């Protein structure tokens, strides 16, 4: 087996693992933003879900209950966001940031008070986390050159939530483009007045969009703490919610391009992990601290350089006030 091929396969596998939480959160944000609600609170929902999932899994020993708790936490926050932005016409960016700040403090306080480990949750093992799954046939294909390596390292051997993510992309695309709910969702984000005239409640559609987004965000957070890692660490979302939001914008609020953008960010992150300590041609060794900023720099460069004027949902950020 050639060394470069293995390296590429490992890099691809790391990209897939890194992209999964971004994709889940990005698709969650897609529901909210397509309905006309800005979702800066992705970061907070992700962090809250990561904490709730790890805490529940630590107490019950069940990854499934953990994931359920993560989803519940994210949906609860989504409802708070809806209460502020839909019911009370509040500023959506402010509401999202409020959630992010609150969650950042709350997870630390509760984690510290409940588990006494400086804000971390106990290390999970066994049924407490989603273990990696060997897909059938990984052994049989091992002898096939190229394909065997690809299948074993990149396709097989991930945890359950990676495969859930892979299924979520076509599912969300179908929901948004092929169902009655999706049509109403897109209409409410473009022209809420028209939807209202048709006798459909704008608020109800937007609340439903936020709840759907909360479910995906909850899975994204659970992925961080009980699938990818074995426990919650303070601030473990580390800006991934914002990266997901940037990927959503970069992907033009469409599921497949968003997936592409998430893969790009995840690749940048996987590459920076590989590049640490390796001299680059013409530059020499880039300090670890700087190379870790690569995904963030890439985000700014992409948003500034290539998106140009992305066409956002028309009514995004504007509270819908019914004529009085």
């Amino acid at each position, binding site marked *: 087996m050639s060394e470069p091929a293995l390296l590429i396969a490992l890099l691809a596998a790391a990209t897939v693992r890194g992209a999964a939480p971004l994709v889940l959160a990005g698709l969650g944000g897609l529901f909210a933003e397509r309905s006309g609600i800005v979702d800066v609170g992705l970061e907070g929902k992700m962090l809250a879900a990561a904490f709730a999932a790890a805490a529940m899994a630590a107490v019950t020993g069940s990854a499934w209950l953990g994931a359920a708790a993560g989803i519940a936490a994210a949906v609860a926050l989504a409802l708070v966001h809806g209460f502020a932005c839909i019911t009370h016409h509040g500023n959506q960016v*402010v509401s999202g940031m409020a959630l992010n700040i609150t969650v950042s403090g709350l997870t630390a306080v509760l984690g510290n008070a409940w588990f006494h480990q400086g804000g971390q949750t106990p290390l999970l093992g066994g049924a407490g986390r989603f273990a990696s799954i060997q897909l059938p046939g990984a052994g049989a294909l091992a002898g096939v050159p190229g394909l065997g390596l690809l299948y074993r390292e990149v396709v097989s051997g991930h945890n359950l939530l990676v495969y859930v993510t892979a299924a979520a992309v076509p599912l969300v695309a179908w929901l948004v483009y092929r169902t009655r709910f999706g049509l109403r969702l897109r209409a409410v984000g473009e022209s809420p007045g028209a939807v209202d005239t048709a006798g459909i409640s704008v608020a109800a559609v937007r609340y439903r969009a936020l709840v759907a987004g909360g479910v995906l965000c909850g899975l994204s957070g659970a992925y961080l703490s009980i699938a990818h890692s074995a426990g919650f660490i303070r601030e473990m979302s580390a800006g991934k919610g914002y990266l997901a939001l940037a990927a959503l914008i970069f992907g033009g609020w469409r599921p497949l391009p968003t997936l592409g953008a998430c893969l790009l960010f995840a690749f940048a992150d996987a590459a920076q992990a590989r590049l640490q300590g390796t001299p680059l041609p013409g530059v020499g060794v880039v300090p670890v601290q700087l190379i870790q900023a690569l995904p963030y720099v890439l985000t700014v460069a992409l948003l500034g350089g290539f998106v140009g004027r992305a066409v956002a949902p028309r009514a995004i950020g504007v509270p819908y006030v019914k004529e009085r």
Partner: protein
Amino acid sequence: MSPAVNRARRLTPIMLPALNLVLALALSAIVVVLVGEHPGRALRLLVVGAFGDGEAIGYTLYYATSFVFTGLAVAVAFHGGLFNIGAEGQASLGGLGVALLCLAAGGWPTPLVIAAAIVVAGVFGAAWAFVPAWLQARRGSHVVITTIMFNFIAAAVMTHLLVNVLIKPGQQSPETREFAASTWLPQLHEVAGRLGVPMKPSPLNLSVLVAIVAGVLVWRYVWHTRWGYALRALGHSESAAVYAGIVPARVILVAMSLSGALAGLVSLNEVMGVQHRLLLNFTGGAGYTGIAVALMGRNHPLGIALAAILFGALYQGGAELALDMPALTRDMVVVIQGLVVLVCGALEHALRRPLDALIGRGPVTEPS
């Protein structure tokens, strides 16, 4: 409408933040109960810790100084409809500038160092805000996301510089050597002592005067200059501003640079006034606190000063509280901050309508 109702209406700008604060504290009380402590006792410890004696008040005002700077920074951007979440990064870059100056200016007379530091802190902070501002103005990239990214990038740059470049040789922790004493910003108790007025020692330093001046200047800029008018016009309606001949790109660049400069001034207080060296994360979250301070202070310098003192009290009282109730770490203050942003910012209309209904008859259309 009766004169009594009118008079009551005028109290709304005071009553609304007060009500909001009560609501935020009530929500925080739930968290206190969740970790198994008594909210009433916690509040009493907090108030005594923040205002109990001269030293406590000095500490409270020292924290408040930083929050005035970041609160003003967020408010200036807010008036133009821009949400600057990057005050944290802009403040740390300001600290870098001030540290470089103080390390180099060992032999300079103190007043000259102070004057230069104000300029350098402002320029470094403004420069860090300028890039997101330019991207927003010229490329339409959303300033919220770019300023957040710039916070992460600033953290990476500062860590790199402190770990690999500026670190004091032969030392483990990532910090610079101590500045020469002539480059320190005098603390207020020293100044008072020299004038013969006894004062309890606290980190409160002369940067509090800079904060007051900055507040007055921001008030002048926003409400009494042509630039401020353009800023507020843009914040209310971009299309109307353009119709009036205002160039949004230019206004955005000026407002964001000013915002970054104000955030950069935090370093006068922390780096030059108290730590006397550059530490990692010396901002201590002041950039994010600025969001809560600006929203609670309704983007007015006077309100910001009051809100900054409130949050200064929360920081100082919270530190004392953490000693008595170890379950309530200082992260509790972050929770309260977030709840204040939620209640004062996102839910501002939720309480206003019942309040208006209580004072007058029926809802009011767009009170400002």
